[in-house]
């Protein structure tokens, strides 16, 4: 089941990274976002970090390697936003 927030994040990923061939339905919440799966890379990780700060006011802290483990797939990303959003 996809939550409202997950759907919102799917659209955020697609719009931020200007993905052409992906619709929200194509993103499996449990599939890795990086390398396999969607095939995102380290530049995308930087872009997504910026987008999360802008949209949800999430500040990724110093230990951002650790934080970005939450970028592993859509479910972990949604959990991060849920826990840390300020807007």
């Amino acid at each position, binding site marked *: 089941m996809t939550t409202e927030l997950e759907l919102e994040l799917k659209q955020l990923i697609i*719009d931020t990274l*200007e993905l*052409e061939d992906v619709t929200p339905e194509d993103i499996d919440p449990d599939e890795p976002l990086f390398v396999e799966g969607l095939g995102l890379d380290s530049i995308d990780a930087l872009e997504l*970090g*910026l987008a999360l700060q802008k949209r949800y006011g999430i500040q990724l802290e110093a230990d951002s390697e650790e934080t970005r483990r939450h970028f592993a797939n859509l479910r972990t990303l949604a959990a991060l936003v849920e826990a840390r959003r300020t807007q």
Partner: protein
Amino acid sequence: MNDSPLRQARWRDPDPSRCVGWLPAGRVTLADFQRRIGAWQACLDTLAAPGRCYALHDRDPLAFASALLALWERGDSVLLPADDRPETLAGVDALTQARLGDVPGGHRPGTGAAPRWGTLNAGRTALWLYTSGSTGAAKRIPKSFAQLDAELATHRDLWPLEGRLTISQVSHQHIYGLLFAILRPLGEAAPMAGVLCRYPETLHAWLAALDDTGQAELISAPPPLERLPDTLDWPRVRQRLAAVYSSGAPLPAADGQRAHRLLDAPVRELYGSSETGGIAWRDTHRQDDAWTPLPGVAVRADRDDDHLWLHSPYLDTRDWQRQADRIREAADGRFHLLGRADRIAKVGGKRLSLTAMDCALEAAPGVHRARTVVLPDHSGRLGAIVQLDPADIPVEHGARRRRIAALREPLIRAFEPTVIPRAWRFVETWPVNAQGKLTAERVERLFRDRRDPTQPRWLGVDTPGDAHCRVTLEVPERLAHLAGHFPGRPVVPGVVMVQWASDLAREHLGVTGAFSHLERVKFPQLLLPGERVTLALEWHGDTQRLDFRLTGRHGCHASGRMYFRAGDPP
């Protein structure tokens, strides 16, 4: 020996408490570092007698540096694979004794041991590294100690480190990271951060952890500098950075300014390549795009075609060498870069032979021809134009995704993720102009829907006569007009299809005049995102009438007649 930062071998100093590696959590002293070098040598002693070449890959700057010095001091040389993909590593195995570092099958050192010091002769090959060659195959380039020392001495004389901490955001498997992030601190007896600093938040925390007098230098590149968040408390870490370096691709002026403002340090760009070494530099934050040649380097522009001719102490020849970049000389001895003349591009800061990518794509079944291009938008990513057998052309979203996945599959094994094409345009006939060329203008047309989300994806036009044409189109999944028409079921509204017909008639048939009215309009089939369609247009100039018909795999999506007023401007 003052001109020989490496051959001075400051890592042998009897200065056990000197800081070599820095992290907020702790320091690595020179004594620790020397024991790590010794540990690597003990490990190597179990593999082979000195005088061999080893493949070294390690993301950790200190682990990399200690392995490198262990090899050099022992009398071995090093080959640096460009990355850690299995195919890259398999390619270097045949040339090397063993793999060292953080790769599958890579040897790692045991516990600390006393190091042995050797001799670093100027003419000896210190290492080999890879570049992407214009023919498509990666080229292996040797660097002697004399060559490395000549560059390092130049950098030290221009911008001495003076004990400042080096923080790196780039790979040291390539020449820029190797020189600036590893060899400069080693040669100038200055500390380096113990791990790569991948993210801006980490950088901010590290700068905050430095005391006010401790300054650092940042070895960076356009991708991280272009993506610095405003939201971090940068004023809190003012004056902690003495300089920011960038190389790998040009840094857009606006991003250079922004990095300068946020990081409160001069932003300096280096221009060069693995083959040529450093060529020139510029202070990007000064809003001046001219490059100053490094001391001892001479450049001139070819009188006929603007190609850069280079004379450099870092080349292994004293002759002038012609380069692939084009330049314009300025009156003051500086120069402007005009761009590359061959098919080498920078994609996300990575140098890539587009020819190699084209060949890899053309090896896939069903592909007649492929051309990859750097996308004509801000993304800096790669797009692919691929000519397929007509039977293999995908006509809906799912088929398109499967086709792209199949084409990506072999590329993922052979290239880094960053350079894999992000936008795909499948064509039945090669989209050349009247002169038979795939021009920049055609490329722009094929990817224009990325810039304007109201546009269909344009995939070619067939104009059998002056008054009629057939345009191949796809409905982008991110088309602006899809949202909100029918909730939960995105379709292209009829009015949008009519607008496309009108726009494309103006573009391809030279229709002018303001829109007047429609007749006999029908929208029999819904048009969905990802679908491929053909728009047939026929212009009747005598009556100012346009017949249009948009058809796809399920039949007709739109048809009708459109009238225009004669003589009016559109």
